[in-house]
């Protein structure tokens, strides 16, 4: 047994339990747990370095400690850390920043980390549920706020349904393949009965359950409501870390156990991809709430990531990884800007109208948000263009030119509402100014994320591509 390969998970898991105990004995637990949580996540990210993280399949085929998982975990841990940083400034004034928040984020990150390392359907389910249960609580964290409670309940009910669908799929796969291990499933799909009705049903149900988690159309309905209702830092974590974990999990499931059945899932993924892009673009137009808008933007972006997945193979996985890495940076940056939207009394505001004329009242913030919007839309020279390009490249390389063409044409539809945000900030007359910024750390994070997605980001192409290629080489 190679415990070193589990080091990041051990740090987070044991650390989270210890934090819960410590918090019970402290007078002001929130500050301590806050920083301890960040420290644990950074430590876990550092623990990802080293040979044991490339140890391959461990624990009787349950656990994959490979570069692919490590790539995902870096994203998950860092975005979880950012979610804790964001929470500090968000909850303080409301007197509800309890010690539980970082602990829940830690458990959620742990679950996400198990998801990307899962090499067995059971492990997958355990990770997914750990992650989801923490998320349900996080979504309703402001339990006195009706919207937050509604978000949590909605998320829980729909999430439970999705888990049921997923479990049903898993049981079908187990019944027809006789195993839950990814390697065994792959040989079952490659075998003579690979296209049997039972396996196909299992595949469809499993993918549907995962589609819920990544909020791909037609399983996206919860996303806008949950993002709107959940506290902003939580929504940021959902949109970034959690989504990254789910997409990487879906990638692994599609390419490893279902790799031989690529023909069977490809059309499903293509449909989900294009439908997500269309719906994410069209439905976002009528939104007047910035968080709902970002929710639709995340649906839209998931669609593009799925275009890369549809390409399949190593090139597809590489494109997905690059896409997710850049997407997470853009999303976190955008949510960090949303945190800044507070009226003079410090209450958070979420309407798009409140952004009016931001370029005149807060030019730097407006510039940063404009950059995130253009980047999410995939307009060069911002770095958000590069992952879209890689995804299209993968699709073209796999002979899916028409999918790439359709997705590219649909970026124009999506660009419309990103432009709307910029129009409000730059063209409209100034509205009431926001309260001044309070946290220097948040400002630094906004500046850092903005810098990363600026044209400066193109200097990162080489390391990013190398890391992604290395991670994708496990397939």
């Amino acid at each position, binding site marked *: 047994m190679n415990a070193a390969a589990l080091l990041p998970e051990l740090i987070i898991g044991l650390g989270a339990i210890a934090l819960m105990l410590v918090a019970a004995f402290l007078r002001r637990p929130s500050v301590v747990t806050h920083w301890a949580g960040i420290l644990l996540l950074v430590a876990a990210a550092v623990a990802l370095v080293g040979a044991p993280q490339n140890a391959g399949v461990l624990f009787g085929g349950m656990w994959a400690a490979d570069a692919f998982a490590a790539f995902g975990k870096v994203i998950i841990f860092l975005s979880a850390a950012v979610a804790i940083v964001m929470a500090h400034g968000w909850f303080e004034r409301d007197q509800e920043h309890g010690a539980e928040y970082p602990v829940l984020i830690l458990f959620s990150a742990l679950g996400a980390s198990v998801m990307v390392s899962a090499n067995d359907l059971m492990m997958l389910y355990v990770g997914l549920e750990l992650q989801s249960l923490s998320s349900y609580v996080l979504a309703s964290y402001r339990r006195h706020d009706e919207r937050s409670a509604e978000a949590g309940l909605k998320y829980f009910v729909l999430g439970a349904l999705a888990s049921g669908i997923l479990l049903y799929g898993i049981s079908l796969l187990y019944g027809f393949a006789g195993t839950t291990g990814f390697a065994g499933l792959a040989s079952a799909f490659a075998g003579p009965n690979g296209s049997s009705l039972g396996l196909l049903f299992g595949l469809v149900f499993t993918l549907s359950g995962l589609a819920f988690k990544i909020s791909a159309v037609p399983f996206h309905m919860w996303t806008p409501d949950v993002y709107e209702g959940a506290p902003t830092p939580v929504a940021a974590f959902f949109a970034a870390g959690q989504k990254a974990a789910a997409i990487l999990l879906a990638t692994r499931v599609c390419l490893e156990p279902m790799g031989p059945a690529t023909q069977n899932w490809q059309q499903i993924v293509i449909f989900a991809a294009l439908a997500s892009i269309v719906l994410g673009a069209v439905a976002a137009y009528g939104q007047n709430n910035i968080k709902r808008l970002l929710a639709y933007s995340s649906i839209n972006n998931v669609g593009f990531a799925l275009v890369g997945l549809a390409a399949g193979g190593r090139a597809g996985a590489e494109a997905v990884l690059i896409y997710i890495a850049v997407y997470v940076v853009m999303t976190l940056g955008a949510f960090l800007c949303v945190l800044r939207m507070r009226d003079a009394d410090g209450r958070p505001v979420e309407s798009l109208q409140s952004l009016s004329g931001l370029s005149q009242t807060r030019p730097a913030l407006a510039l940063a948000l404009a950059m995130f919007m253009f980047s999410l839309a995939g*307009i*060069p020279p911002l770095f958000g263009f590069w992952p879209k*390009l890689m995804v299209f490249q993968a699709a073209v390389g796999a002979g899916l030119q028409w999918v*790439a*063409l359709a997705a*590219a044409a649909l970026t124009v539809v999506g660009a419309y509402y990103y*432009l709307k945000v910029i129009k409000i900030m*730059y063209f409209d007359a100034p509205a009431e100014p926001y309260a001044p910024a309070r946290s220097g750390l948040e400002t630094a994070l906004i500046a850092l994320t903005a810098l990363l997605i600026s044209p400066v980001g193109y200097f990162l192409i080489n390391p990013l591509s190398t890391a992604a290629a290395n991670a994708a080489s496990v397939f």
Partner: protein
Amino acid sequence: MSFPILSVMIALPLLAALGCLFLNANGARWLALGATLALFVLGLVLWGSYQVGGPQWQFMERVSLGTPYLNWNLGIDGVALMLIELSVFLMPICIGASWRAIDKRVPEYMAAFLLMEALMLGVFMAQDLLLFYIFFEAGLIPMYLIIGIWGGVERIKAAYKFFLYTLLGSVLMLIAMLVMIGQAGTGDIPTLMAFNFAPGLQYWLWLAFFASFAVKMPMWPVHTWLPDAHVQAPTAGSVILAGVLLKMGGYGFIRFSLPMFPDASAQLTPLVFGLSSVAIVYTSLVALVQADMKKLIAYSSVAHMAFVTFGLFAFNRQGIEGALIVMLSHGLVSGALFLCVGVIYDRMHTREIAKYGGLADNMPGYALLFLLFTMASVGLPGTSGFVGEFLAMMGTYKVSTWGAIFATTGIILGAAYMLYLYWRISYGAARTAEAKAMVDLDRREWLLLAPIAAVVLWMGVYPESFLAPMRADVGRLLTRLERVTPAGDSRPTSGNPEATKNHLALLDAGEAHR
């Protein structure tokens, strides 16, 4: 030459744009003017050190970003050189034109213009397919802001229309680029210009590129964004839009469509000719009935750009050289016309033609320059417009009589709408008291318009200065196209050699003197 002059020319405006954001209004104005003038000087240095008849690609720079797809590859040929000169020449004029006209959010305005300049230069310098795309697309952002923030009443609609129209064309091109990189294994433009794609594939690639360039050009029927954008944009924005951005479409045809997809280009020439014919006649007629000066000039741009497409797809030297000169000339002339509109707009704040009249009385200097640019737009011999349009039509006539007929119609209609415009504005009696009270050009306006007038005359009298750097490149393009050049539809007869011989013999014998 080891000095990376091209990178410096891209970096300088970027740095100046950044600097503008930290200055007050006047500081930003002077910084922008200084930076654009410095770039103009650099542009002249570039022209001076460009070796006419030297290697095809000069001032090459190669920096690898570590990916097979995208690299910092710069380099220019004669065509790019001339368009770069056009950009750096117009830019200080734009800054000058905005000196007083723009009084809100000046630092951002200047920054947007400088960013625009860096991106335009990047488009003409890029030698990597995706690098070109990035510059090409990125230009939408500053232009969107320029129209949207500093534009007229309907600016928001115009800004959206401009952005989304152009984006839709471009994304199709992006996918085609990816296919090309997949086929050729490289995104290096000089390599691709010599790469032979399968004819069947060329057809689709050509159409994808056409979608982008036709919108940018703009060609009928995808020109509808242009009148809106022009009318709503501030004066300097219109100048850059007409002067340089539209040229990117023509540049794209020369750089990509023709050399990379010669078979498809030949195959689809009827499409281009058809659209151009409609464009010339239809948009000229539309221009004739406009009540808004800027809209009239915008429609005339569409008509003039049709000469470019005619000339380019004539596949002969006259046509292509003519198209290039039309591009340069139109950049100057339409830019100058927009400036002329701006001059009187700054005084009366209306673009309605019916509000003016009789300006020749109280604004003689203005009437003179406006007349010159009107004539250049019409194509009067001695101005730049004549050279380009004549060559382009000659080239067209060699391959298509019908094309030439429509093109000529365009010239007649062009004279009609431009002279009608000039008549209504400059002659007769002033229709409003304000128009009568307007004062003539001040020194700043003279400084803006006189250099353009000088270059327009220079290009009209001695176009060789501008044709010389491009001649070798046109030659290379023609060699590349030789295989597919269509036979003309003119049927020259061999005449009557016998009669001529007899006549000459008679002359020799001195019979004619009897």
